[in-house]
């Protein structure tokens, strides 16, 4: 998966560059983020500003990342969700589980 990574202060901002976050990319994305976490990055923002659609496989990958971060007292903020993606989080009630903000600038204030 094509990811742009920027370190801003102590926070890693990961911007997904692909338009579709789906089954073919979920596992690779999860492993790449796991590598960052195991490398010491525990304050993460994941931006979906380029993503049109997110499927259940990718949703599962995000849950796995969150589970991976919690024992390390890490933090994950999701940003720039379009209406379809926001709808998916609300439908599955995962909007109550994840911290969701409308922009990476707003997300930075959570750390």
């Amino acid at each position: 998966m094509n990811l742009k990574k920027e370190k801003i202060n102590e926070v890693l901002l990961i911007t997904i560059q692909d338009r579709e976050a789906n089954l073919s990319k979920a596992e690779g994305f999860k492993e790449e983020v796991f590598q960052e976490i195991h490398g010491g990055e525990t304050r993460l923002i994941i931006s979906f500003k380029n993503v049109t659609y997110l499927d259940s496989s990718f949703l599962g990958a995000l849950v796995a990342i969150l589970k991976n971060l919690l024992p390390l007292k890490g933090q994950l903020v999701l940003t720039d969700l379009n209406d379809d993606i926001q709808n998916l989080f609300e439908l599955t009630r995962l909007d109550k589980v994840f911290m969701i903000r409308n922009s990476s600038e707003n997300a930075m204030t959570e750390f």
Partner: protein
Amino acid sequence: MSEHFPIYIPLGVPESADKLYELSSNVIQKLRNHKVGNEKFLKNVRLVLIEMATNFLKHVTDANASMLVTIEPGQLIICKTYTGSPIKFTCDEACFPFNNIGAEMRISFGKNNDHKIRIDGQYRFTFLHPVEAGPDIDLLAENYGLTIITLAADRFSYSYEPGQMKNEFLAVMRSSD
């Protein structure tokens, strides 16, 4: 609408997840052309189509597998069929063939992937509202496909015909027109 129903939209089995959004967009455009449903309805149709097709890619190897969208007055039916072994699940209370028709029970498709069902026949059940995880994030599911279909559709059911080894998933969605 002054069209003749039902209207069928057969779908080819997708080869890659990267083609599913386009596939769903093509179906939604056809539904718009037939003036079926509002935008919220079409969003839910996209969810069901993509999750059903994703499930195909993950679990089904049958070359004759197929998906069919049927437009009927007031409702849309999305059907997925394939031949092979019946769906695998674990359940403390019962297994195929069911004999407690009408009963509701909890089945599991894996770790933290539990679903509530109502038994409709020996090899037939309807998915009910998903089992919610507690506040513990470690107990959250990492598989959401069936949950999304259950929540986005008005009815989501599974059936199996042992003689023909035919599996069928059926999502019924009431359109608002």
